[in-house]
């Protein structure tokens, strides 16, 4: 697929990616997914998104070609690829901050490398395609264990790993009340993961009833539809006896609804880096001394965040793009133990040829859409 400007994508023939560095691999994509953060690109919110760019940072595939210095993969391997592009050796990678690699993104120092996520994250084409270039093949990709299904592996390349990471950033202790804003794929994963970390109550908040039903069945969460309340912050206080939640996880990000002015000035008019509605609800709804974990993606421009309240309440704010591969060993243990089934959140599968309709359906939240998988060559 290629980007043709805000709200427009199409499928077209491009040259097959080639080995450009000795540790590159070329992967033949077998499954990709559309991520909620792809919608920020699709809506024209991410600076330096160029015409002809191929989106897609969630994908798995088969190794088609390897560079001369690749030692850990061979042609034909079935691999999952974390959405982060990283070298494994810079100051940040040496400390486990794989999502903050300094050696892969000339266009910005504040952001690491990400597949198919504009030139602001390095200018790499993504995996919503038949083939994709994968830099540092000895560092990022991992051979998929035989027992793991393609769709579960796909969900580990970003959405589920990000939600799991987000719950960890909440620093949850036994009995905590955890509110998760947003019941999309990352929110569902965060809510499910909060219980693994011992949360006493998990409360999922969204405006879409079908997603809240999923939060109840998939993540065993209590649910609140914020449109049913005059002020969701007051409800967050009431349900915790006036205290506020111990931990709030923002799994919404730049296109948050709930305040028309904030949404329109950011998502439509691009005057803010993102709509801070969820972040402001988190600041107001968490208890004093509590922790906010930000998993929602925001653009690099400023946003109207209520920072004064965050300071006055003594909050801890923790955030990052998830260093995905760090999460995998433990997540694979949980899947194998039967605790988790990430692919249960997939609702739609579309051929690559119909990806424009897949984007519109996901963007407009039609037909009960939660997670859309893209199948090349189907």
């Amino acid at each position, binding site marked *: 697929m290629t980007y043709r400007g805000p709200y427009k994508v199409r499928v077209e023939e491009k040259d097959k990616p080639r080995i450009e560095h000795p540790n590159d691999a070329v992967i033949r994509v077998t499954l990709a997914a559309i991520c909620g953060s792809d919608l920020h690109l699709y809506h024209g919110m991410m600076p330096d998104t160029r015409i002809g760019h191929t989106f897609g940072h969630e994908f798995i595939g088969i190794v088609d070609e390897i560079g001369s210095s690749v030692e850990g993969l061979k042609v034909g391997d079935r691999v999952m690829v974390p959405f982060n592009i990283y070298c494994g050796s810079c100051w940040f990678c040496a400390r486990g901050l794989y999502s903050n690699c300094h050696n892969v993104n000339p266009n910005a120092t504040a952001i690491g490398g990400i597949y198919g996520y504009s030139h602001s994250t390095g200018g790499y084409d993504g995996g919503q395609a038949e083939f994709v270039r994968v830099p540092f093949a000895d560092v990022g990709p991992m051979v998929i264990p035989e027992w793991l299904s393609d769709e579960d592996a796909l969900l580990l390349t970003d959405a589920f790993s990000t939600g799991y990471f987000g719950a960890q950033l909440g620093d949850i202790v*036994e009995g905590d009340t955890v509110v998760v804003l947003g019941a999309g794929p990352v929110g569902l994963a965060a809510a499910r993961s909060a219980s693994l970390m011992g949360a006493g109550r998990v409360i999922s908040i969204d405006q879409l009833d079908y997603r809240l039903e999923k939060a109840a069945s998939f993540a065993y969460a209590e649910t609140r539809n914020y449109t049913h309340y005059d002020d969701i912050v007051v409800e967050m206080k009431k349900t915790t006896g006036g205290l506020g939640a111990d931990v709030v996880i923002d799994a919404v990000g730049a296109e948050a609804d709930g305040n028309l002015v904030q949404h329109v000035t950011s998502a439509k008019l691009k005057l803010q880096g993102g709509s801070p509605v969820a972040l402001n609800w988190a600041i107001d709804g968490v208890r004093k001394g509590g922790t906010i974990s930000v998993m929602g993606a925001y653009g690099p421009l400023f946003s109207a965040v209520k920072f004064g309240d965050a300071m006055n309440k003594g909050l801890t704010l923790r955030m990052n793009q998830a260093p995905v591969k760090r999460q995998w060993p433990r997540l694979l243990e949980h899947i194998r133990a039967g605790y988790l089934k990430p692919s249960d959140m997939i609702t739609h599968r579309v051929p690559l040829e119909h990806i424009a309709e897949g984007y519109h359906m996901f963007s407009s939240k039609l037909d009960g859409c939660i997670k859309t998988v893209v199948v090349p060559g189907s």
Partner: protein
Amino acid sequence: MPYTADTPVPPPTAEELRARVPGWGADLDHADRPAWPKERFAPGVSGAHWEYPDEQQPREGRERSIEHLQLPPVFGTAQPLHGVSGAIRRFAYDRFSEGRAAHWLLLVAGDRVESTGAHLRSLLTLRPDNPVTETGVLSELHRHPIASRRGRVDVRHQLLDPVLVAGPWVLAGGVVWMLGRRLLRR
């Protein structure tokens, strides 16, 4: 209530939660959490077998943030800078750090210039941009458009989407029409 020392709404017991939620508490111990601690100095575990990676070639002309002290060894080559939009973007990279709003606003301006030019150029090709197929609106026909939107607050601003997509073109068409009419009258 928080006016006394006790937690106002006590959580269910661990036994209740273990019975209800598969895997509840499996990661209670922070040592089992892979993201804890955030920073762990362990340069040997990533799979990298280099101190500093080989440098990708060619490197000439690749734009970079002025906050980078050098061009990083590896970079994307997906859509090189070109034309007017390329000049705007290069100015943004060469002149302003990431800390300046001008940097990002110029990049957004470059995006709009490029998309406008690409749409116009596509009209001269055998495959012009098609707003019907490229926006995917045809999916509305078989994805329950009315039932899916019932009771949703975001429907209010979804009405703005077609205006945002088509509005600039209608506006530009109007300006061209007015200028043309004025010229013809002279």
